[in-house]
């Protein structure tokens, strides 16, 4: 019968090197996550999500799943702590980012006083396309909220508070900017009239359905469990057949939604917002595509990142 060697963990402040905490009788198969919980007991205001522990002050922080005895340390481990600042979980982040645009757009649609000239306060635009645009925009963000609450399965990751302020300013600000023009008393309806609006509306709806289908599919891929890792593949749903051509069809559909919304409203700010969104999503898609290609040896070579056959 052998005795388990217990580890000792000494936690120092990464910047000042001052001694913060000494943990003894730590099980060798504890994870970094366990150590963070123990550290949290001594410092209640530094909850685990806020902690970054590393073996060297200059190193990248250790992952929560890393196991203590697998690290290159003796039985006494010295770790350096860094405070990441207040953190917010991904669900809260998404909710904050979606609820803003949804509500700010409505402020402009109902022409809340002091936005436009006093004469138009609390009226609504007579154009049918403006009503349609409000419905589309609202449905887009309601769909996002529903997905955030019921569909998406986020990893335990969090985001620093400062990033959330920056992201929300961007999303809320942009939706206010484009809502201002669409609901303006001097708004000019699309040049090709109902034909343009109806075609664009149809494509918008197809892209929204497509985006939703992809999110459901990705959800099921995750559900299969962490033991057998598979990459997402087309299913019986025709919307998912875009997986034959791209790694991130959810981003492709999202760009499609916003492009059709710009054509439907014929509004340059919407087109500019679409361009910015496309640039950001292309970067994310390329990253994901690279990760998939590296992880899976049998990854289909036909697939591009975000635009079929092109990017």
């Amino acid at each position: 019968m052998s005795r388990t060697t217990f580890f000792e963990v000494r936690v120092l402040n990464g910047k000042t090197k001052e001694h913060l905490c000494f943990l003894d009788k730590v099980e060798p198969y504890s994870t970094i996550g366990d150590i963070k919980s123990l550290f949290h007991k001594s410092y209640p205001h530094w909850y685990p999500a806020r902690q970054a522990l590393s073996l060297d002050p200059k190193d990248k922080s250790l992952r929560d799943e890393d196991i203590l005895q697998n690290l290159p340390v003796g039985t006494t481990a010295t770790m350096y702590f860094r405070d990441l600042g207040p953190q917010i979980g991904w669900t809260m982040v998404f909710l904050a980012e979606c609820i803003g645009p949804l509500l700010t757009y409505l402020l402009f649609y109902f022409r809340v006083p002091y936005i436009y000239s006093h004469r138009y306060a609390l009226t609504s635009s007579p154009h049918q396309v403006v009503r349609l645009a409000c419905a589309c925009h609202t449905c887009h963000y309601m769909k996002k909220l529903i997905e955030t609450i019921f569909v998406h399965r986020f990893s335990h990751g969090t985001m620093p508070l400062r990033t959330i302020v920056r992201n929300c300013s961007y999303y809320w600000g942009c939706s206010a900017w484009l809502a201002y023009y669409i609901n303006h008393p001097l708004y000019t309806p699309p040049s090709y009239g109902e034909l343009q609006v109806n075609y664009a509306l149809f494509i918008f709806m197809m892209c929204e359905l497509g985006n939703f289908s992809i999110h459901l599919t990705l959800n099921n891929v995750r559900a299969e469990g962490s033991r057998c890792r598979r990459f997402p593949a087309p299913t019986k749903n025709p919307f998912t057949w875009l997986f034959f051509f791209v790694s991130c069809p959810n981003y492709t559909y999202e760009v499609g939604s916003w492009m059709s919304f710009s054509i439907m409203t014929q509004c340059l700010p919407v087109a500019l917002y679409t361009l910015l969104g496309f640039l950001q999503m292309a970067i994310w898609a390329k990253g994901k595509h690279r990760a998939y290609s590296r992880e899976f040896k049998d990854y289909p070579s036909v697939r591009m990142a975000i635009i079929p056959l092109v990017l």
Partner: protein
Amino acid sequence: MDISVVQSEDSVLLFVSAWTITEIIRYSFYTFSLLNHLPYLIKWARYTFFFALYPMGVTGELLTIYAALPFVQKTGLYSITLPNKYNFSFDYHSFLIIVMISYIPLFPQLYFHMIRQRKKVLGHAEDYSKVE
């Protein structure tokens, strides 16, 4: 289209001279660095002259923008109004005011960055002179 009424303002002389001196020193610094033969004088000048030149340049720029504002407002320079086919508008006058306000957070950041760089770059020289 240019704002000729503003070109003869004193503020223009202020920032043009500040920038001219800065750029001559800065590009000499880069050139000599590339040739691996940087005279200490150039390095010292680059990290010392900015104490005066930077505020001079910023003051000149801000005064010039301020002088141009009435003209921009009167002529609607670079501005697009509603209604138009693409449902877009841009007010250059408001844009210039926002630019002027943005100097308030940005100038201190850049200024203190230069001061920090100076400590890092010129700090060594003090150590060497002590050794000698």
